[in-house]
């Protein structure tokens, strides 16, 4: 067992980045190898975390707590529980795969890989931070490399997409910062009595003081946090950065965007909004609004996906739909739904990662992504078609593949919620199942079936490097589809605890204390 | 005019010093600039010896002056060698032409 394992996993990419920066920029292979080695090490450390994780406790594990900025009571405080552990695993895995997928980046490699490693560190940090300020720092650290990665190595409209992404997320960050400050000044540190950024202290409602005891203030803070996170998820009216960013970003960045970044929104809600302001979350107008937005995400995202002609955009909109399922699963506040939602976060990370990689494969060969421009690839690229079918079917929720379980649990959880009556919404949400099948199969047909487009008679089959990126994900798709306990065991205890905490939290509506 | 004292020597030294400085500042020829420098050094030496006479018991000033003379000799030798090299490079020892430092 490695000491300070969380710090190691967070700062390992930073070390890698420094080494990359020290290398001369002509040594392209060395740069790539260093990045691959460091992200590979990260996967190994993530595996260590997986093996050493205690599945029977609700408390934070692998905790490290060091005073950082004394005058503001800011701590370097990291730790993980069942909620974050799956995200840490996902981040490590997808980062490694994205590095391998970045092998054919052909300009400014040094900068690319350095930025990528920084991004990696930021993402990892967001998932392990337990000090709100630290969380915010990592959140911002992640933003900047992403902006450059889209803006420099992206497609033709990369500047537009990058700026849009940046502005959107910045708006979210600002709202989050506001909420952060309100919380900071109105939560007592139980030890010193001063202000605190400690999330665990914030979660204890007894520490809330000052204006945070007023219900309308709590609602405002919750709303600010919600919009901040909703932009990341993205939830319906705030989603338009996503298709652009996805389409313009280079393939590995799309993988990271869909696989990890979107999860930060829902992760933030589960880590911060729900446990810190449970009564605001449970306030009915908010809760039903939340559910309605979730359903809109599902149906609207799927319908939009169906209308797309660009393959990558289609996958992007499909992400919106699938994140809606996560939201729906969260909203019911049932153990089944919550576990389904977090599992869906992980599964969607894997499947959407796979889908983007698959799009990348044909984009590299055909240099376009118009669905109608393909056709009949199945006879030319049978292995590719096989893997693509696996991913497509996983995406449309075929039983035996990972998405099914998590979606089914999310729907079951929402439908069976005893705290709230979400049955009608869930039923509308299940329309998404049909629509997803509709556009996925339609796409499968248009791209792979029918007579082979004569332009692509010499289209090469997937190569080994691409297989290295696709096969591990494909295996996970099947393994988690058959035996989801591999992950559910990790998160179950913590998530059940979260559900109970939120459900049993007192309300400030009627003036507690 | 009062009796010659320390101040007289100091004024003489200052006068020689500024004259030497003037040579350094205004002469085009590198050799004359070197001459100016030698003059400045001598002016300083006058100071040393004068203070040695009027404010010192141990001949420290004189000894200092002696060392100045030694180093000045060394400096002159090296400087001349440099001047000769410059001349070989540029066919001139005129300092205003040696302005490769110009911005």
């Amino acid at each position, binding site marked *: 067992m490695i000491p300070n394992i969380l710090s190691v996993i967070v700062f390992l990419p930073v070390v890698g980045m420094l080494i990359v920066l020290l290398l001369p920029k002509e040594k392209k292979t060395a740069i790539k190898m260093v990045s691959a080695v460091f992200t590979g090490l990260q996967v190994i450390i993530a595996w260590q975390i997986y093996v050493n994780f205690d599945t029977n406790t609700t408390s934070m594990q692998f905790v490290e707590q060091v005073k950082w900025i004394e005058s503001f009571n800011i701590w370097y405080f990291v730790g993980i529980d069942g909620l974050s552990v799956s995200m840490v695993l996902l981040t490590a895995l997808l980062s490694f795969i994205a590095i391998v997928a970045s092998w054919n980046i052909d300009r400014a490699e040094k900068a690319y890989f350095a930025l990528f490693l920084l991004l990696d560190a930021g993402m990892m940090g967001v998932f392990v931070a337990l000090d709100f300020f630290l969380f915010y720092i990592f959140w911002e650290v992640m933003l900047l490399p992403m902006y450059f990665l889209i803006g420099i190595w992206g497609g033709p409209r990369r500047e537009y997409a990058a700026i849009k992404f940046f502005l959107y997320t910045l708006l979210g960050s600002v709202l989050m910062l506001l909420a952060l400050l309100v919380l900071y000044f109105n939560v007592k540190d139980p030890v010193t009595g001063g202000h605190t950024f400690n999330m665990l202290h914030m979660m204890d409602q007894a520490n809330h003081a000052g204006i945070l005891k007023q219900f309308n203030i709590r609602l405002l803070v919750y709303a600010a946090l919600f919009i901040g996170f909703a932009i990341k998820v993205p939830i319906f009216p705030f989603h338009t950065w996503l298709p652009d960013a996805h389409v313009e970003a280079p393939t590995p960045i799309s993988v990271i965007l869909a696989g990890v970044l979107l999860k930060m929104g829902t992760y933030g809600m589960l880590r911060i909004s729900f446990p810190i302001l449970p009564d605001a979350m449970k306030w009915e107008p908010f809760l039903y609004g939340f559910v309605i937005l979730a359903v809109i995400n599902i149906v609207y995202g799927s319908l939009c996906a169906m209308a797309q002609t660009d393959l990558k955009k289609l996958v992007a909109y499909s992400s919106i739909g699938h994140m809606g399922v996560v939201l729906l699963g969260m909203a019911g506040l049932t153990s089944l739904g919550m576990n389904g939602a977090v599992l869906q976060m992980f599964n969607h990370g894997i499947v959407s990662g796979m889908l983007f990689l698959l799009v990348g494969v044909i984009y590299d060969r055909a240099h376009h992504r118009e669905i109608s421009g393909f056709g009949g690839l199945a006879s030319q690229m049978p292995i590719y078609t096989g893997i693509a079918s696996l991913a497509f079917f996983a995406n449309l929720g075929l039983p035996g593949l990972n998405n099914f379980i998590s979606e089914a649990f999310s729907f079951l959880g929402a439908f069976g919620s005893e705290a709230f009556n979400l049955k009608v919404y869930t039923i509308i949400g299940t329309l998404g199942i049909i629509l997803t099948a509709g556009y996925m199969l339609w796409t499968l047909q248009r791209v792979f079936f029918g007579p082979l487009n004569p332009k692509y008679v010499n289209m090469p089959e997937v190569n080994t490097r691409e297989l290295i990126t696709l096969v591990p994900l494909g295996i996970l798709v099947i393994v988690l589809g058959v035996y989801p306990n591999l992950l559910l065991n990790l998160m179950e205890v913590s998530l059940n605890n979260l559900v109970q905490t939120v459900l049993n939290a007192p309300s400030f509506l009627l003036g507690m204390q | *005019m009062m*009796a*010659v*004292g*320390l*101040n*007289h*020597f*100091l*004024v*003489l030294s*200052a006068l*020689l010093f*500024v*004259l*030497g*400085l*003037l040579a350094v*500042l*205004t*002469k*085009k*020829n590198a*050799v*004359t600039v*070197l*001459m*100016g420098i*030698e*003059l400045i050094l*001598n002016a300083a*030496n*006058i100071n040393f010896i004068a203070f040695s*006479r*009027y*404010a010192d*018991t141990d*001949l420290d000033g*004189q*000894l200092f*002056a*002696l*060392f100045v*003379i*030694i*180093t*000045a*000799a*060394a*400096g*002159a*030798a*090296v400087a*001349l*060698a*440099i001047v*000769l*090299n410059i001349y*070989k490079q540029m066919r001139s020892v005129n300092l*205003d032409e040696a302005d490769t430092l110009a911005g």
Partner: protein
Amino acid sequence: MSYFDLTFYVFAIGAVVSAGMMVFSRNLIYCAVGLLFALASIAGIYVLLGADFLAATQLLVYVGGILALLLFGIMLSVKFTGVELRTGTLQMLPGLIIVAGLFLLLLRMIYRAEWAVQTPGDMLPTTTTIGKRIMTDLLIPFEIASILLLIALIGAAYMARRERS
């Protein structure tokens, strides 16, 4: 005016005039000659100040050595076509102003300073004392100076003869 004073003024004026000749003359040879007389006059001043050994050194080293060196330098670097032996001056006016300013400042300093002046004692021969001190407590600086001279000698010789490299 005492004999001492008279000697001082003679040497001082000689030094200043020959220095002025050195500075303002356009002919390199005159410059050199001016410097020669200036240095010789300074040697006289040294004698007035009771520094007999230094005065001798001054004459030997400067007038005999350095000046010969300088003359060699002039002769080697200047084509003997007559015109080339002249040296021009630059920025004479600003130079003069600055130098005059500096001189005034120096004068001000000289007259305003409270020098801790002692009454000068008898003029004793200094050679013994200097020799003793050089060989005792100033031995290391002296040796360093010797090495410096040696280095300068070798360096100068080396640089000066790198003609055909």
